[in-house]
């Protein structure tokens, strides 16, 4: 479940709130979630995703899974904000805050280094 990105010397895991029933997601589904295209889990509950503001884990996850550089991801969301399509995604400055957000918000999903995973969240795999 730990995904290693040699290019960025970083590894990350995908974490979800414990009320999320999924145990794995396809790469396309994860990408769609973080691009705002998939807003609901299969059971109809709302997806709430959280992103890190910067760092090697952030870069590795965006490049490996979302297929965008940090600048491209930033501008992707700025475009949505400045044409009214969406509000800004929830972003946090460190992994502890990401884990806290996922723990306390139903339907939440995020990514952190496995060093920060606690038993208050569920780790799921990317297929």
């Amino acid at each position, binding site marked *: 479940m730990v995904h290693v990105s040699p290019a960025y010397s970083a590894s990350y895991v995908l974490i979800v709130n414990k009320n999320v029933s999924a145990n794995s997601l396809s790469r396309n589904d994860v990408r*769609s979630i973080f691009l705002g295209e998939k807003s609901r889990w299969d059971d109809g509950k*709302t997806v709430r995703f959280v992103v890190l503001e910067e760092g090697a884990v952030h870069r590795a996850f965006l490049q490996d899974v979302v297929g965008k550089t940090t600048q491209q991801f930033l*501008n992707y969301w*700025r*475009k949505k904000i400045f044409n*009214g399509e969406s509000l800004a995604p929830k972003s946090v400055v460190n992994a502890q805050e990401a884990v806290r957000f996922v723990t306390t918000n139903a339907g939440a999903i995020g990514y952190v280094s496995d060093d920060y995973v606690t038993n208050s969240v569920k780790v799921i795999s990317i297929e």
Partner: protein
Amino acid sequence: MKTKILFISGMLLVIMGHFCASASALEVGGFEIHGWASQGFVQSTEKNPYPVKGAGEGSFRFNEYAINVSKQLTDNLHVGIQLFGQDRGYYGNDKPQIDWAYADYRAFDWLGIRVGKVKMPHGLYNETRDNDMLRTFIFLPQGVYNDLRRDTINSQLGGAIYGTIPAGKMGSFSYVAEVGNILISSPNDSGLAAQVKAQGLASDVSDIDTSTTYAGKLDWQTPVEGLRIVGTASLITTMTANGTVPNNFPVPGYAGTTQPAVAKDWARHVLSTEYTRGDLVLALEYEQIRLKLQPFFGPSSLSTPETYYVSATYRFNDFFELGAYYSAYYYDKNDHHKGNPAYSENNAWQKDLTLTTRFDINKHVVLKFEGHLINGTYLLGEVLPAAQENNAQENWFMFATKLTFGF
């Protein structure tokens, strides 16, 4: 004086950027607030003052600003509004206008609805063309993204449906379909008014009316990683600019009267592709335009321009990005040497080779420098009277720099 204004504006933006470097948005009472402000400078060949009035001597009449407020009301519903203003010397004059303002209800991922003043799709980048922070170039290729025509393709009062449909191994499809009426709130400050004035048909434009307008977009994220193919189309059934005929109009009986200039069945079709591989982004767009022009004096005519461009951008690091494009715009898609008979023979086309450097000072401040080598005067002729365009040079240059602060 101009140098002082630029210096002070620049320092202000850098300072604002420094103090806001850790903030991505302002939030007040559950409302999210974003905005940006840009100040630029343009210098062109003396006899080819484009795309900003006075560019031949160097001009600072090149700025934009916007602020938006949005709120998520429920998981499925959000509302927002954005005010926007710009100055290009020929048009704009920094008059604030409602850029967009709508309610967005997303019933499903494959079906949402927007009601209000909604942004219009056109090519890859129309919905974000105003914000300098969202692109590499200062000026997007002026064929597909003609700033003079922005008001006629920016947004409309009406409604839209949209959504994204996964297609398995075929990738995914996103769509937008909308209908409404284009509202131009400051007609005399619009780009369309600038063109009508340059042609000597009006000294001022009192109002611009449009009938029903349709627009749509289909965006295919292909199975090839990073490759998207996009088609957009729009149709303005009728657009009428009512203006006061100038006193020096050569035909007796018209001076001082209010007369219409009408464009009918104004259709735009754009086929686009964009390929992203890491920090490299390649784009290619081709557009055909077709409209019937009915001036108040003289015969009607059918206008059939075409335009295309190819661009490449590469980001070297968080600080520096480089971009280049080549674009071409032809007055008549069937004869690339045929132009407006009142203008010079160079008016049949405009070709533009552009090189841009972008520097991200931090997440909130961007500085750019851009050079254009241009052949032909088609777009220049839209903002100059025929007599002045006839003195313009066929081969010319334009340099621009721009500083933007956004949050």
